[in-house]
């Protein structure tokens, strides 16, 4: 195999979510950007093929239309509606049904928050909602914690992808518990896993991919960067690098130093 052929093989690394194939491993949010134009340019620069959207109450005078939605549609990306703000399984199921009708997709990013301090997912309500939504024909992308048993139960319920947090939403603190994330990866080797929330820098995203995670979902880290478009590009490159690193297989860590340069024939060396 020539170098060019090998590069082509390495670049062709798609992944599948609920039967749909994607090339980019970055899922990106559409909120918090300084302007709709910057949102559009940043998402394009990121290379993301999946964007998250939401639903909120609409005043009659707005008539059901808004400019930002026109910008999002023009991105021509796959939509992943969320249930952000829901506190109970019932709220999440109702909002998911409303999303399915508006966005014409059975994909749903399931968020059921259990605590306001850290916006931690409620494991019991999330599992309850996931079970109901799967019965209703939804493809559920559950936002969950890095609790292994919570993740196993969501898998058992029929979720074909899991999205444990790196750290609480909007904190940018990165992967707080790599051990827990790694345990999920090892126990569920075949299930697509996405780190969702808490990613602050491209190095965090790269770390997630190096742990063997299949993708990363983020919003604030790009939208609130000083230069969102440049940061979006940086994330795209970091995620690509992280995935290549995982596939390449990192060396084993050692406790002691070992010279890289051959010691045999070292000049000026004399045994004392």
């Amino acid at each position, binding site marked *: 195999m020539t170098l060019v052929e090998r590069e082509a093989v390495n670049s062709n690394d798609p992944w599948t979510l609920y039967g749909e194939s994607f090339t980019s491993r970055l899922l990106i*949010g*559409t*909120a*918090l*950007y300084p302007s709709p134009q910057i*949102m559009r340019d940043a998402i394009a620069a990121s290379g993301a093929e999946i964007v*998250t*959207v*939401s*639903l*909120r*109450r*609409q*005043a*009659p*005078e*707005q*008539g*059901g*239309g*808004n400019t*930002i*939605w026109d910008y*999002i549609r023009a991105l021509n990306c796959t939509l992943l*509606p*969320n249930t*952000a703000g829901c506190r109970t399984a*019932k*709220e999440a199921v*109702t*909002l998911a*049904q*409303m*999303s399915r*009708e*508006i*966005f014409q997709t059975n994909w749903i990013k399931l968020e059921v928050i259990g605590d306001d301090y850290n916006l931690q997912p409620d494991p019991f309500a999330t599992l309850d909602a996931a079970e109901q939504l799967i019965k209703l024909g939804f493809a559920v992308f559950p936002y969950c914690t890095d609790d292994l048993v919570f993740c196993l139960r969501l898998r058992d319920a029929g979720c074909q992808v899991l999205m444990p947090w790196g750290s609480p*939403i909007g904190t940018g603190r990165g992967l707080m518990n790599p051990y827990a994330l790694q345990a999920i990866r090892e126990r569920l080797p075949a299930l697509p896993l996405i780190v969702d929330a808490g990613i602050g820098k491209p190095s965090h995203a790269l770390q997630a991919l190096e742990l063997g995670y299949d993708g990363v979902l983020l*919003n*604030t880290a790009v939208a609130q960067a000083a230069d969102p478009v440049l940061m979006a590009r940086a994330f795209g490159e970091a995620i690509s690098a992280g995935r290549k690193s995982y596939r390449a297989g990192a060396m084993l860590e050692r406790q002691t130093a070992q010279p890289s340069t051959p010691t045999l024939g070292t000049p000026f060396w004399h045994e004392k």
Partner: protein
Amino acid sequence: MIEIVLNGEGCTLPPATSVASALQQWGYRCEQIAVAINGEFVARGEYSSTLLRAKDFVDVVAPVQGG
């Protein structure tokens, strides 16, 4: 007239007003909305046959950016 709550705000409607008629009276004109009554989803195809009752809580939502 009956009193209902639309997106958290009180308002009045003639008795036996359908969801379809209420949306029209309120000025919603776009296809890009979805409706729930008392926390239960109401599909678009049911707007004409669903009548609003006194003290109903109506939520009308539309797409926004999200994370």
